């Protein structure tokens, strides 16, 4: 069966293998492009957030290519993302297609539904649960490897002597990881990629700023949605770290990591209620970045994202208390690269001045 799924950063490399190994034909939809956005915007509600629109466009492009089933994740609110599946399905049907959207909600809340859907997927692919378990472990390794390589690229990029080199090598890395099929191969591939990225010639004497990136998970992870902000900043000589990576989100949801609890605790003086999405994490991560001595924080959020609006309302107070500058960027289908670039340049100038002032003050 031809199965498709949403594109979210580099994770498609891992999901592709997952579907292949459980006996289905993965249909990797085209990378999000302006056409995806146009299609998505045309058929989505006007005030839906940008992830909804990009996903809508991606699904329609996947259907054009012959997808029979689309798999995505769900949720239990109060963030709208938990209801995407139902509405996407209704819109797809209204347009006259009969492709099904299969949503995996939280295992903890609806495990019966989760298991029955998974069972159907496995049995139609003629795969046993034991085999699935093995495949899942391999794929998870792949996901972690992808995230580690991505993180390394953000560390290398601000120091690269030849602009754009890291991005090119990073693309090669994705292909190398894509080829690796078993745990040992993935390990080898990962080391090869580390080698490749570390061998890029670097100028370690640069005065590199450190910026933390917080915000809504989809626009953090998908470069198309955030206009490739981390690579852009990297090429401007800024080291960036973001709070959320997909493999880490997965770990949190399977209770094998508890970084999140720390973040929520850090946010508690400012926001005492879980408000859905990543709102409280944006506040907590900002506090933590300030404590770790970062120069600034950038909050990324889709336009009209409710939890992030609440976070934005609170962040000025965090900024006042901890002294860390925060720039909020709301992204929508109208956001242009040049506009964003200008705002980033201004923000970075400000941070450089602050740093100089701080250092100068310490000397005199």
């Amino acid at each position: 069966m031809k199965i498709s799924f949403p594109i979210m950063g580099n994770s498609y490399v891992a999901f592709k293998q997952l579907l292949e190994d459980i006996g289905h034909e993965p249909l990797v939809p085209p990378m999000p492009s302006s056409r995806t956005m146009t299609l998505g915007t045309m058929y989505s509600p006007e005030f839906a957030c940008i992830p909804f629109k990009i996903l809508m466009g991606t699904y329609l492009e996947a259907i054009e290519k012959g997808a029979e089933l689309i798999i995505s994740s769900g949720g239990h609110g109060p963030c709208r993302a938990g209801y995407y599946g139902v509405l996407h399905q209704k819109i797809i049907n209204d347009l006259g297609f009969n492709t099904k959207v299969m949503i995996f909600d939280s295992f903890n809340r609806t495990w019966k539904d989760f298991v029955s859907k998974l069972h159907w997927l496995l049995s139609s692919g003629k795969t046993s649960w034991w085999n699935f378990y093995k495949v899942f472990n391999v794929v998870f390794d792949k996901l972690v490897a992808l995230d580690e390589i991505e993180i390394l690229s953000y560390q290398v990029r601000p120091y690269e002597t030849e602009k754009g080199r890291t991005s090119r090598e990073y693309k090669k890395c994705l292909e190398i990881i894509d080829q690796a099929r078993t745990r040992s191969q993935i390990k080898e591939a990962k080391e090869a990629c580390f080698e490749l990225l570390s061998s890029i010639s670097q100028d370690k004497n640069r005065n590199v700023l450190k910026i933390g990136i917080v915000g809504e998970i989809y626009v953090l992870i998908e470069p198309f949605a955030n206009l490739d902000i981390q690579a852009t900043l990297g090429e401007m000589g800024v080291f960036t770290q973001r709070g959320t990576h997909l493999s880490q989100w997965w770990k949190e949801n399977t209770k094998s990591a508890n970084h999140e609890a720390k973040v929520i605790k850090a946010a508690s003086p400012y926001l005492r209620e879980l408000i859905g999405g990543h709102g409280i994490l944006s506040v907590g991560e900002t506090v933590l970045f300030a404590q770790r001595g970062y120069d600034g924080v950038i909050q990324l959020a889709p336009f009209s994202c409710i939890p992030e609006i609440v976070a934005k309302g609170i962040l000025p107070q965090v900024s006042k208390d901890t002294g860390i500058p925060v720039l909020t960027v709301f992204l929508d289908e109208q956001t242009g690269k040049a506009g964003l670039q200008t705002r980033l340049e201004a923000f970075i100038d400000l941070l450089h001045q602050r740093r100089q002032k701080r250092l100068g003050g310490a000397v005199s």
Partner: protein
Amino acid sequence: MGLKIGFPRTLFYYLYYPFWHTFFTSLGFEVITSQPTNKLSLDMGVQEAVNDACLPIKIYHGHVAELKDKVDVLFLPRMVSVRKLDAETFCPKFLGLPDMIIHSIDGLPRIIDEKVHLARGWFPLWQLCRKVARHLEKGGWSVWKAYLQANKVQESYIKELASGISPQAALDGAITGSVQEPQPAPIPDVHLAILGYPYLIYDSFVNVGLFEKLAQMGIKAWTVEMVPPRRLEAQGRNLPKNLFWNFSNRTIRATFYYLQEQKTDGIVHVTAFGCGPDAMVDKLMELEAKNRGRVPFLTLSLDEHTGEAGVLTRIEAFVDMLRLRRGQHENIVSNNG
């Protein structure tokens, strides 16, 4: 009179004020509400609130700013849930509202931001009342009596609201105990379901006098609150998954109810510009209205710049269309000969 307790006249006011009013006054406090929304509260709200917030949240900020110097205590409950239904809660902005207020408005008096979380525990409403009373240093029998009294008043308020009288009249009626009869109106020729959240539907400043205009045009307006509660909840089965937001569930269920009953000629969805949950609700309503008998559907989006003329024009055009449509169905021979 004891302490003065401030209650902003917006958001939950329209559904839950009679309860809290009775509760506080029976305990011997004075409850002060802000003025009905006006230009001043809007301006203050726009000034204080984060710029990306929606209109109702901005207006809430405005009401709080107006009240802060007039009262000793501000009652800003954190609405988390009012019943047990899947993962139902309120819009994330409601969940974070007390925090947003505290971090954006200066010079606030003491705030009671007790969590209203009625999906959990035994007799959650009573527990909540006890906690609120404890903040005000009250306890014992008087709280229990105030609680019973408040429940009674709330019940009669909801009943009066269901009969279709204006919320202000229903509110006065419930609090003073007098039963108000709905005004006898001429038999309307057009019935419209005006659906949306209570803080948009019942705030005539925000919706620029929509209901008065409809009455003048001889149109009967049906609201979410006019659906019998049990019938409303029964409509939940129409969706594969409940929405996560209480007001949104009420609105979408009312949509299903009016579509099923076929009592109304058209459906008008009143929404606030940039409302997150409504982006979902509006599309669902549009699709359902289309699939269940092609019922005419209009979305009326309100923001801080909404003008009276604009709303009036759209409503008039919509109603003209409805009348024309009906004419076509009834007379096979057209009026023009």
